[in-house]
């Protein structure tokens, strides 16, 4: 077991800056997820923790010790790869026990350890098979077994579920969560799937273009995103955005937007360039009775929920998440959207979120 910390870590490949000045501290036993779009540097950052890639500058500490120049083998980490990276010519048993062979452990002791781990991961009936004879889910279990058998201080997962189909992904997600519950070992998990991050993580590190956008609990990221990127990345369907500007009309001084949107301007705060509202905070009302009008273009019925798509004149399409389907006769017609004041997120021109007083209640809710 060990903590991990990074102090102003950067990585360049030639002139290309992959990681830029990352600072983060991961507590012993914590489950941390690195999330971000592809190419954001999350896998590179994980490989820097593992020692597979060296940092161009900065310090990496594991358990308080500076390991920046320590090779991967001596860092006490285990790595689970997206491609599983099993040795194709070895049996499952040898795949799991291979690392122990060079550690001077007796053959029968290795066999016992392999057996224990295999039973834990429910692959004990496959020990004599070769990787190509296994399904994707079984392969990933073997790969996790290979990591587990070494009893590492830190588990590193690089998109371990991306090659699995949806059902299996759900099952393996539960399995990994259970593993963390049982072992209480520090785990760092990389994914591009925000829902995987939300369900697994104690804390999430959101990365974009090699920079940390925000670090926080799933609830903090959802309710109090630091900026437009995090707001848009966390949550599914993603948050709706609308460009706005400060101005005045017959309703007085305020924030104006397309479709006749008028919001009271919060005193003492910078003028927002954009607002965001999550799909689940929106309601459909008859035209002219809501915040602004738009045309209902399409409704998707998912059974337990419905997604409605509304085109705002001179603006983008907004998604509305509804429990019940709106009336079919409304499709193609103008409707109004309504939402509560506290569900509006304000963003400045540089993408930073403008905190408003109602945040405090959100914060309290998040902590509870």
């Amino acid at each position, binding site marked *: 077991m060990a903590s991990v910390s990074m102090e102003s870590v950067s990585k360049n490949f030639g002139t290309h800056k992959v990681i830029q000045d990352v600072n983060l501290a991961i507590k012993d036993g914590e489950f941390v997820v690195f999330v971000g779009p592809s190419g954001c540097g999350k896998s590179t950052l994980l*490989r820097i923790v*593992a*020692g*597979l890639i060296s940092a161009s500058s900065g310090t990496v500490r594991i358990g308080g010790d500076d390991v920046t120049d320590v*090779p*991967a*083998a*001596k860092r006490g*980490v*285990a*790595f689970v*790869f*997206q*491609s599983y*990276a*099993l*040795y*194709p*010519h070895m049996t499952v048993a040898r795949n799991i026990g*291979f*690392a122990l*062979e*060079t*550690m001077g452990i007796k053959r029968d002791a290795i066999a016992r350890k392999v057996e224990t781990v295999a039973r834990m991961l429910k692959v004990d009936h496959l020990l004599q098979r070769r*990787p*190509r004879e296994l399904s994707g889910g079984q392969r990933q279990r073997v790969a996790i077994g*290979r990591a587990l058998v*070494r009893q590492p201080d830190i588990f590193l997962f690089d998109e371990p579920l991306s090659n699995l189909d949806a059902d299996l992904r759900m099952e393996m997600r539960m399995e990994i969560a259970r593993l963390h519950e049982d072992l209480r070992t520090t785990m760092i998990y990389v994914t591009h799937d925000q829902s995987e991050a939300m369900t697994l993580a104690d804390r999430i590190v959101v990365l974009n273009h090699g920079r940390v956008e925000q670090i926080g609990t799933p609830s903090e990221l959802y309710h109090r995103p630091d900026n437009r990127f995090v707001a848009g990345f966390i949550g599914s369907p993603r948050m709706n955005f609308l460009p706005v500007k400060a101005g005045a009309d017959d309703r007085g001084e305020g924030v104006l937007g397309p479709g006749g949107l008028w919001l009271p301007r919060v005193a003492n705060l910078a003028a927002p360039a954009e607002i965001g509202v999550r799909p689940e905070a929106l309601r459909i009302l008859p035209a002219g009775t809501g915040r602004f009008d738009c045309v209902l273009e399409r409704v998707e019925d998912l059974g337990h929920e419905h997604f409605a798509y509304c085109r705002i004149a001179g603006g983008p399409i907004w998604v509305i998440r509804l429990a019940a389907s709106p009336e079919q006769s409304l499709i193609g017609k103008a409707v109004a959207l309504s939402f509560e004041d506290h569900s509006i997120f304000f963003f400045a021109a540089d993408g930073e979120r403008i905190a408003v007083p109602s945040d405090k209640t959100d914060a309290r809710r998040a902590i509870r």
Partner: protein
Amino acid sequence: MSARLARRDHRAAWFFLLPVIAAMLVVAVWPLGRTFFFAFTDAYLDDPSVYTMVGLANFLEVFNDPSWWLAVRNTLVFTVISVSIETVLGLAIALLINDAIPGRGLARAAILVPWAIPVVVATKIWEWMLNDQFGVINKVLIELGLIDHGVAWTASGSLIMGVVIFIDVWMTTPFMVLLILAGLQMLSHEIFEAAAVDGIPAWKRFWSITLPMLRPAIGVAVLFRSLDALRMFDLSYVLAGSNEKVMTVSIYARDRLISFQELGVGSAASTWVFLLVALVAIILIGALRLDKAAGH
């Protein structure tokens, strides 16, 4: 698919295969069939239309000829030694230029040069460099004080096989490098990252991971090179004519057929060469388990 559709697909397939079948008939089946046929006759090359059937006599004549067995021995010695050296060197060089060393692109291109030179040209170049009086090799060795008079590399009977093997290694190691390098680049990078994290030492990584996973690539390379080496003709012939010390089975067959004009015996010798190559191919494919190695 309905029966009629299937029949139409079938006809289309035969239609597309027709040109290939015709070409194979003309360039492979016909000449090979002729060779096989003449092997059972006493025909001479000046007038192949005059012959009588002699059964297996030609095959027995070749089989009982000490020169033939000398040629077989030379061919096998040449094949085993040159292919072994080329495999080890090829593997070493491939591993070296697979890593991201500076100038890797240039090294990869440069390494192909010996292979791109025609065999006859390369052999002639080496023959001159190895010349006992005017050769640059002897000059360098004398100036370095390693020898005091020029060595007759290609004239001395004990050295010439070594020279043939050396030139072959020089010429065809690039081919080995290329095939093994292609195999190396197919290997998943993540497997080696996994081994690095697991603390597998370099030598064990090589023996237990790289080598077993490269086996199919090395196997194919060894098979190609061995079959090529078994029917080697040009290198020995250009360097030493019909010198018995480096006479290969191909040269033996050519001598019987062209020099001695014995179409029947020459054809029988060619058939023996074919059988020898086929036998080695079968043994190699079995030994290297190439038929099973394809799947990961």
